[in-house]
């Protein structure tokens, strides 16, 4: 009995994902096909990249509510420099990522040096970044983007949609950072016990700063992908995306108290949300009901996690 619960606590969310897939395969025509699988992956790649970013922050014991706005702002920034025959492709990309880095640094520095609670700082940044996106675009969608820019969201690489390729790259790189580098280890230590981390000579502020920068930079990447995919820099894009990302992290077993969690868990959490959305779409369930179901899953996952960790 103990080993069963052990297996469940370790692989519970993965088993849940597999279980959901099996049920959907039998109940929903067209669910289990290579084409639909690619659709699901492409749909989740933006939320996936955001969720991975916020995983860094949450493991380090913080939270980031500014993701959705940062995604909009960086999308607008990228689009503004991506009109045909203006700048080479690297310019919008670098500028958007740099915007992400700067915002992450402001979040991180206000939290560490200013000693303001992460919730407040990033709540403020949520509004600030949204406002900047509207100011920067005069409140209008930025359209007429170059084909090379639109390739990022709409193109294929070796037959696979580019967003999926980028999502995979992000997964691999972040897994390596979190489990195989010093800074990754420090992120867990800082989130697990900040005082002990400090007493062990870890420069806690730098570690937190790193986590917030990674998070905003990944939000910028997601912003580029979204702008390219809808061929528009949309200042109103991504409202409440941060909540979807945090939901995926929680479903993936990362503790909101910090010190515990993994990228694999987050990716599974993202897939669970994605697969269920897709299945309900295919079943023509109204999006109103989909929201209710998603909420139930989030709380249910947290309940299961409490049980298995007791």
């Amino acid at each position, binding site marked *: 009995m103990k080993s069963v619960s052990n297996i469940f606590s370790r692989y519970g969310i993965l088993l849940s994902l597999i279980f959901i897939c099996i049920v959907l395969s039998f109940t929903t025509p067209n669910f289990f096909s290579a084409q639909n699988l690619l659709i699901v992956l492409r749909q989740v790649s933006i939320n996936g990249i955001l969720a991975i970013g916020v995983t860094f922050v949450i493991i380090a014991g913080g939270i980031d509510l500014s993701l959705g706005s940062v995604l909009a702002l960086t999308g607008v920034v990228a689009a503004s420099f991506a009109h045909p025959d203006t700048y080479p492709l690297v310019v919008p990309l670098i500028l958007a990522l740099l915007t992400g880095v700067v915002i992450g640094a402001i979040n991180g520095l206000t939290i560490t040096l200013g000693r303001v609670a992460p919730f407040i700082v990033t709540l403020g940044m949520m509004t600030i970044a949204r406002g900047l996106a509207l100011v920067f675009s005069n409140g209008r969608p930025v359209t007429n983007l170059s084909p090379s820019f639109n390739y990022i969201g709409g193109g294929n690489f070796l037959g696979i949609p580019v967003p999926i390729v980028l999502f995979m790259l992000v997964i691999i790189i972040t897994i390596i950072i979190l489990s*195989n*580098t*010093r*800074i*990754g*280890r*420090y992120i*867990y*230590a800082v989130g*697990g*016990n900040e*005082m*002990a*981390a*400090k*007493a*062990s*000579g*870890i*420069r806690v502020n730098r570690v937190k700063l790193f986590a917030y920068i990674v998070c905003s930079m990944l939000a910028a990447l997601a912003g580029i992908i979204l702008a390219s995919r809808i061929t528009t820099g949309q200042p109103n894009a991504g409202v409440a995306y941060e909540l979807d990302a945090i939901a995926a992290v929680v479903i993936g077993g990362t*503790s909101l108290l910090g*010190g*515990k969690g993994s990228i694999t868990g987050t990716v599974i959490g993202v897939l669970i949300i994605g697969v269920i959305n897709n299945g309900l779409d295919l079943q023509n369930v109204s999006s109103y009901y989909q929201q209710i179901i998603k909420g139930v899953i989030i709380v249910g996952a947290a309940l299961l996690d409490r049980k298995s960790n007791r």
Partner: protein
Amino acid sequence: MGNYLFSAENISKSFPGVKALDKVSLHVEKGKVHALMGENGAGKSTLMKIVMGMVPYDEGTLIYKGAPVRFLSVHDAIKSGFAMIHQELLPFPELTVAENIFMGREPGGILPGFISKKKLNEDARQLLKSLKLSVKETRLMKELSVAEMQMVEIAKAISNNTDIIIMDEPTSAISGREVTILFEVIRELTAKGIAVIYISHKMDEIFQIADTITVMRDGKHITTLPAKELNDEKLIQLIVGRELSSIFDKKNNMPGETLLEVKNLSGEKFSDISFVVKKGEVLGIAGLMGAGRTEIAETIYGLRRPAGGAVYIRNKRIHKPSPSVSIKNGIGLISEDRKRTGLVLTASVRHNITMASLEKWSGFLLDKRKEQKVSREQVQKFGIKTPSAEQTVNNLSGGNQQKIVLSKVLLNDPEIIIFDEPTRGIDIGAKTEIYKMITALAEQGKAIIMISSELPEVLGLSDRILVIRNGRISKELAAGEATQEIIMQYAMI
């Protein structure tokens, strides 16, 4: 049995690996102040927690008003007429004095669920008046001084028809005049027939207020005597009274050059601290809990900011002390509270062991195979009892956790090692191992600062001893001239 209001008979209690109480008895009389004394770790707090129903006990009986009782919760104990004034008070700061006193028992208004504020304040005023207290019942709790908050706590206890009030070091945060007021209130209480169990380390207070004194040591009842039959000297002897056991294998160290010098260091809870520690020497720092010892250690290490003064390592001034700078300069701190500053409880043994030294033997990418090898070696070397190095440290015993902290700090190979209460809450076996390690480290030429409330430990290991009282060095003693009685005198009086 006589006419005791309350008796604890032969109470025993074991925690994993430690016998905290061994057949301890305590008899409390109506209207008397009964002082409970003993060193830190003697078992006073455990006994009081048992009385208050906070901790279950293994054996023995509690007899209250002639009948056996067993409290399953604090709520039970309070309902039966017990109250405890904790060392750290837990008021509701944003509520008024009256609201605090009647928290959970507010007088009802006309409609159910409403509170009659008028009656609440009136009742509180009467109560405060009966104790001759001058605190206004409508003031917010957060505006009160610590002493006033204590008074409110006492008033709250009285309002519950309390027969016995336990006070755990009530004077640790208050001073002179406030102590006088507290004593007046205690006399009011005893005049009403209430019994007071008074825990304190301060000799002068005990003799001012106590009728009876019980001394505990190492979880055992040592003696109970009327206060008039005792004096300072006798009492100190009873409190420390044990022989130095043979677990200390002390060599005469030959101190070398000065490694650490502290000049006029001041900070939170301490001021003007100066001393040196030499290569191959153990400097003991003794004093009561709360005297400022931990603050001194953490300031030297850079965990706290100094208010003034300086720290020199090998005659070089450290300008911006921080733990990472300290580690680079060869200082290691084994902290007092391993759960607060020592360990990441959610992480594995391996992660904890290597946490402080990753920069030393690993590049940006972790060499996990090497890390596994190192942590396995450390687990063996320090005799850490764990199923594997991948075990979460949360699940290990205190002694094993302490060894992990030790192993983590020593992996950096520090030259100066500060031990702050290194044996707190661990069993005698693990203690002995840690003593051996400290002695061995001094022989290897490390400079060691050893802070402890356990006097045998300080005496058994140190070459020199600093006694700290109220944040200042009250005496420096050479190993030869120090005894438990002398140290206690400088620590307390």
